[in-house]
């Protein structure tokens, strides 16, 4: 028995010394586990005389304590070795980025714009992208045969017999305002984000397909000051609270007075968008009485805003499907 205990201690010493983290507990269990060899000896003590039971029991318990100590010691040694190993990590290695997708910068900026204006009670309104000439031009006080139309080079879809039924790819989201005003009386507060089209050769600052974000407010007593207030609010929301905006004179057939908005950005005034007080003729066209109501409208190119915000120098990148571009946002 005693020899057997000595043998177990010896075997345990070798086995534990040879084990790694995963085999340590199973190796120890071979000796001191529920069915371990030392445990078996302890279980069999009942068959011995009291004298022997006391002696062997004492030895077996000592052996158990010794093996447990070996396990603890081995554990500490392994931990120390592992820690030493782990501390060799080069903490300067770059991180492994999680694999996520990316939203288009147009989606991101459109969402920021929507949130900046819905918090002022503006509602998102929509309209078709293939639009009637009537809504895209005529109702907006842009008559055929007027040079104002040169501002909107147009993709035509169908030429109607009397002109009014002609269809085109909308050149701005302003027809959405016409449609909305035909169906609603003031107070009106809408925004119309959406895709628009211009028949023009593409270059770094022109794309034939792009997005616009327009706003319209019509109510009693709406003034130039209110227009400035709303524009200031969202320009600061998108480009930062330190950004200054200024207005300067311009011409749009559907607003009078009309303005261009410049922002002071990166040390210079940059043209951002157009705006103005809704032209009384446009209000009359949609059966709103201009002597009772007034309003303002503004429109910004979403890509243009994104280009300012993110320092993008070529508008064609937005629709390029180029992974080097789209995965940056």
């Amino acid at each position, binding site marked *: 028995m005693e020899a057997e205990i000595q043998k177990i201690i010896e075997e345990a010493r070798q086995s534990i010394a040879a084990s790694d983290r995963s085999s340590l507990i199973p190796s120890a269990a071979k000796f001191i586990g529920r069915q371990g060899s030392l445990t078996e000896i302890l279980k069999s003590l009942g068959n011995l005389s009291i004298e022997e039971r006391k002696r062997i029991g004492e030895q077996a318990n000592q052996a158990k304590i010794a093996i447990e100590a070996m396990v603890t010691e081995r554990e500490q040694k392994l931990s120390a070795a592992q820690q030493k190993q782990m501390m060799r990590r080069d903490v300067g290695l770059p991180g492994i980025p999680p694999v996520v997708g990316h939203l288009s910068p147009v989606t991101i900026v459109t969402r920021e714009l929507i949130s900046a204006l819905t918090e002022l009670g503006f509602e998102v309104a929509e309209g078709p*992208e293939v639009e009637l000439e009537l809504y895209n031009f005529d109702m907006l006080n842009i008559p055929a045969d007027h040079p104002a139309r040169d501002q909107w080079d147009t993709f035509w879809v169908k030429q109607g017999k009397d002109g009014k039924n002609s269809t085109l790819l909308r050149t701005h989201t302003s027809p959405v305002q016409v449609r909305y005003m035909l169906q609603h009386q003031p107070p009106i507060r809408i925004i119309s984000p959406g895709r628009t089209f211009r028949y023009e050769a593409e270059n770094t600052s022109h794309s034939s397909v792009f997005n616009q974000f327009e706003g319209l407010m019509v109510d009693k007593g709406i003034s130039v000051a209110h227009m400035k207030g709303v524009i200031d609010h969202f320009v600061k929301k998108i480009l930062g609270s330190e950004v200054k905006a200024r207005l300067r004179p311009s011409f749009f057939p559907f607003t009078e007075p009309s303005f261009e908005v410049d922002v002071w950005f990166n040390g210079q005034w940059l043209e951002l968008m157009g705006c103005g007080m809704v032209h009384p003729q446009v209000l009359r066209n949609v059966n709103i009485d201009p002597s009772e109501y007034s309003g303002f409208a503004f429109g910004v190119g979403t890509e243009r805003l994104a280009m300012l915000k993110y320092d993008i120098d070529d508008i064609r990148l937005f629709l390029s499907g180029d992974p080097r571009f789209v995965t940056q946002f």
Partner: protein
Amino acid sequence: MKFSYSWLKELTKFKHSPQELADLIVLHITEVESISSGAGSYSGVTVAEILEIANHPNADKLHLVTLDVGLGKRATVVCGAKNIEVGQKVPLALVGATLPDGELKPATIRGVESRGMICSAAELGLAKEAEGILVLPKTASVGRPVNEVLDAANDAILDLKILSNRPDYLSYVGLSREIAAVAGIKWSMPLELNFRSTGGSSSDHIGVEVKDEALCPHYRAHFVSNVEVKESPQWLKDKLISSGLRPINNLVDISNLVMLETGQPVHIFDCAKVSGLPGRSPTQRVSRLGESPQAGGKKIIVRRAKAGEKILTLDGVERDLNPEVLLIADHSGPIALAGIIGGESSAVTDLTREIIVESANFNQAVIRRGSKNLGLSTDASLRFERGLTAYLTELGMRRTLNLIQQVMPEAVIAKGDVLIGKRKSIAPAIKFSTRSVNDLLSTKLTNAQIAELLRKLEFGVKYAGGRLSVSPPPFRGDIKEMADVAEEILRLYGINKVSAEMPTGRMLAPKSSPHLILADQFKDYLARAGFTETPGHCFIGADWAAKLGLKLDDELKLLNPLNSGWTHLSGNLWPNLLRFAPKFGDVAKIFEINSTFIKSGLQPGRHSGPEGGVLPREEISLAILVGSREVDAYRWVRGTVEQLLSNVRGLKFVAVPGSDGDLYINTSRIMAKEIILGSLEELSPRLANELDLPHGGVWAEINLSRLAELQLEPLKFQPFSRFPSSSFDLSIELPISTSAGMLIGDIKSSSPLIREVTVFDVYYPTDSSRSLGLRVVVQSDERTLTEGEIAALISKVTDIVTTRHRGRIRGSESE
């Protein structure tokens, strides 16, 4: 339009620097697109001194000229001019310099490379023609830009954006009046307009007939004889050059100058070339001085062109005409395109002795239509289409005659214009209350302040009965109502003096449309799931369609596409994703959400409104595409669609049988009960290969407009069992004809204790069989399942596999 700073200064007498002037114009008048120094449209041309002239080795008339270009550098260029001499200071354009004809590129001339050019006045755009190179004054310093040396040296050129309602900004008089108003300078007409008439009456020589006064409300013609056509004096040439026009001859230059100064286009006909009345003696009425025996009975007719008529215009193009175009004609036919361009047949030449000066007003729409119709836009049409007022015809005529007398004192100017049209049209006064304009502008201006501002721009202002009565000046055709006047007031007062204020108003609950909410949610989900949004142009053309095996018959065609690749509007988004996929290399996971266009929809378009049927159907669509080396793209796409549509009731994927040669394979219709929501398809290896997608490609497209109309299952929390779950794996061999989807469905519905069945492995040991690894998770809400219960479930599932689906169990393991 380009404006010369010094010319404006001469007219307005301001003290502003070019930059200060530009700032003033930007804030009160219109956008300044650029300020540049120097007159010519050249840059990078410097002063150089000729050091040496050698003969060209291969050409007698050419020389190799070596020049000092400054900073101790020399350059040798090929030059053919006769007037070169050693020691001359000359303008030298080296490679990279910009001349009116474009950027200078290196050239090899008779075997010798020349990296520069000694310029003539013509090459710099300073004259129409030039003999030899331009010799600069001896005092010019070598190496300096040439524009510092030339006369226009200290000038600056302001390029202004011309608003389409302000033709008066297309004139020096108009702009200088505006500048004076905003700079607070007193202004009066700066142009000399007087002239002496020494001839007979214009009407003795010419008659005018206007067929439709609506198209030509005002026509003035004036007869001048004894003119001599030659080069203009230098001051006149300089003025034109400073505004970007090339001098031609004194008469043409005068008419161009008048247009620049007053904004009124004037045209000069060679009287001898205008035909007289048919059947009448050409000397029916002889001018009193008798200098012009042929003159008399000349008749100008303003009418629409007839189909089939032709004219050779001054730009050397013969043009076919049609009734859209308004003509100036004589009895023999067209002599000019009214308001656009003159005709060659009646043009002034060196031999011209008698002229007819035309200063007329044409209907803006008719000029624009004609100009568009002919594809010809000119300085004249640009002004007329913006709506000039008839008032200007008199100003234009008087200034032209004044200049003719200045430039050629010997000319004999007849008395009186031949005038067709009402002498003056008085625009009605606009009446409004001071309060209404202050309310609109958020200003607190008094009547006196408003009157003071408006009078600077020559508006007439009266105050009576509590209302302002404002009369626009005769040169403004754009002022029609109070809003127009308000803009003038605010511009002058200062837009940026109005402080911002938030509007107050009734609270409104903004509505939002279901498909926009869906689109937003889907974009977020897809980005989290590793998909990247790649919007594209929504156009498609024959080439790409052919490559994808698509017909364009059902797509909406554009009347004026930008190019042959973008002739139609795409009815689907996936063809565009296939364009982008190859750029993503080993793993492409991309999507787009956008409108698609359906030419002939059975349902009315969602936006067609009262004009129903006129507009095509537009639907919001979602397309996702996966091409990957590492994963089973087909199951990845399907898994994504299943997740996106997890709250759709009765979602199912219905396989569409395919055949061997298909370009698109393994097609499934994505359906909500009986409603088709979209499609899931895979590229055939042949097509994938052609599209440069070595790992293949799988796409799904879902109609979000239709999805948004469905009643979706609201998300509810599912309580989970307190008892542990168990699972067992089955390795199954299944005939290829049996759908794994059906098998899994059957297993799931066989017992409420079966909570989840997932596929962890698929492979194909033979052509006719397939091995599946299935993991079945079982759990009860009431108790821990016993080993016996689990064994019973295993045998139940085994039975479903073997008897109902004719599969074979290759092994099982439970845990």
